[in-house]
């Protein structure tokens, strides 16, 4: 499962995450390779969302929540860095599209730029266009970037949120069930987009949909009751899992 240090973007090392006294993630160690898609699957409540929320220090924002262990981003422990800086380097897209409802399409994508720096308008325009192109949305909104973000369809809103994350120039993109609220056509577009994004970013996706993991991910991790059960190349995990628990889950014999 392990790879050499040079091919690891995120090294999760003996990570445990707590909600008060309840441990949601238990001693997970995982090496996430750069510029690949890594999927995390498992039944509801297995800790997969909690795990990725530890990868951009979002978990600790909940009252009573805490983390043990470490997460190394290019060898630097995230928990020794400024959380705001961490969230710029590690972007996140959530289950439901969450554009800023009062803002335009342009306003949404430029938001991270305006919050974080005093940037010349031309530079901002360039980054907004580039981010919308990278999120495969530019062709659909180029004539109406001043329209309200809420005028977009669900699938477009989700790609807008991806564009907004990309505008902050992250290295890693976390996706927490990004297609669960979308129809199959919008889902296919996001999946196509994920395949494009991995050329420039490291993508970690949590999904309930095993077929989606099989379609988009290079590596897949299976979690159960807060623990990492198995991690390996996606093809191997779905064709020939090593663990009986993984086999039982992916063949629908529990979960």
């Amino acid at each position, binding site marked *: 499962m392990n790879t050499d240090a040079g091919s690891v973007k995120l090294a999760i090392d003996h990570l445990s995450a707590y909600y008060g006294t309840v441990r949601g993630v238990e001693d997970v160690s995982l090496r996430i390779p750069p510029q690949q898609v890594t999927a995390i699957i498992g039944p509801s409540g297995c800790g997969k969302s909690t795990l990725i929320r530890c990868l951009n220090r979002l978990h600790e924002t909940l009252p009573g929540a805490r983390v043990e262990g470490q997460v190394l981003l290019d060898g630097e422990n995230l928990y020794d860095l400024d959380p705001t800086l961490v969230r710029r380097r590690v972007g996140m897209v959530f289950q439901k599209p969450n554009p800023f409802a009062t803002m335009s399409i342009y306003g949404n994508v430029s938001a991270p730029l305006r919050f974080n720096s005093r940037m010349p308008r031309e530079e901002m325009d360039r980054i907004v266009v580039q981010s919308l192109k990278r999120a495969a949305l530019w062709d659909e909104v180029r004539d109406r970037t001043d329209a309200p973000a809420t005028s977009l369809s669900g699938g477009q809103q989700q790609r807008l949120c991806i564009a907004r994350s990309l505008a902050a120039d992250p290295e890693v993109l976390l996706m927490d069930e990004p297609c669960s609220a979308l129809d199959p056509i919008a889902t296919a577009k996001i999946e196509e987009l994920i395949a494009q994004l991995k050329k420039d970013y490291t993508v970690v996706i949590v999904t309930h949909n095993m077929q989606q993991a099989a379609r988009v991910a290079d590596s897949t991790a299976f979690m159960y009751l807060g623990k990492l059960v198995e991690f390996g190349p996606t093809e191997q995990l779905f064709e020939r899992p090593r663990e009986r628990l993984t086999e039982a889950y992916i063949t629908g*014999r529990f*979960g």
Partner: protein
Amino acid sequence: MTGDPLAPTGTPRGYDLEVQHLKQRAARMGGFALQMVHDGWRAFDQGDRQLAQSVLDRNEMLDHLDDEMEHATIAFLVLRQPAAVDLRTAAALLKMTTHMDRVGRLGYDMCRISTSGKGPRESPQLRALLQRMDEVVESMVRQSLDGLEQGRIDLARDLFRQDDEVDRMHREAQRMVIAELGKNPAAAARLANIVLVSRHLERVADNACKIAEKTIYALTGQRRAEYLPRRPPRFLNEDPV
């Protein structure tokens, strides 16, 4: 979620029944193909043209069974989107039925030889050898189908040893034919038919092994190279070192 997720539920799911049903259908197709070999050998041995014709007529049914299995397996793949052992089983069935089809075709080919009316009865020793070969080969196909249906790796693994025995008998048949040809050149056509039938029986055994390989893959995920040392290819008339 509570309890042991690996504990048996006691009730077979519709899904499991579907997998079992597919295996049973495949085994029935294999049984049909095996009967073609059995009758093919008998037709050749006894010069029974009527029996030979009945085997030739069964070829269409064999194709039909092959198509049906392919449709049923693809429907299972599409509708159930299986993973792990179920995925491997479906993939293995698609390949296995091709080997079953080949088994039936070899029975068919033996009948095409037998319609020429040149049987083995004038060479009693050769006939006894081919008779023995047919018995071993038929038992191998039956065992490969039992291995599939009952999910038994031990039955499947045992076939590779028997295949070596069939290969040995085929080489022996070739040697005997060459010796007899030297003594009786006029029997060349009849002896050539014997070599052909011996070769067909040897190929049936190979297909039984292929079915067994696919059963082992379905059950364990292991491919042949992972559990059997690869042997260098050799000429048909060459004894193993």
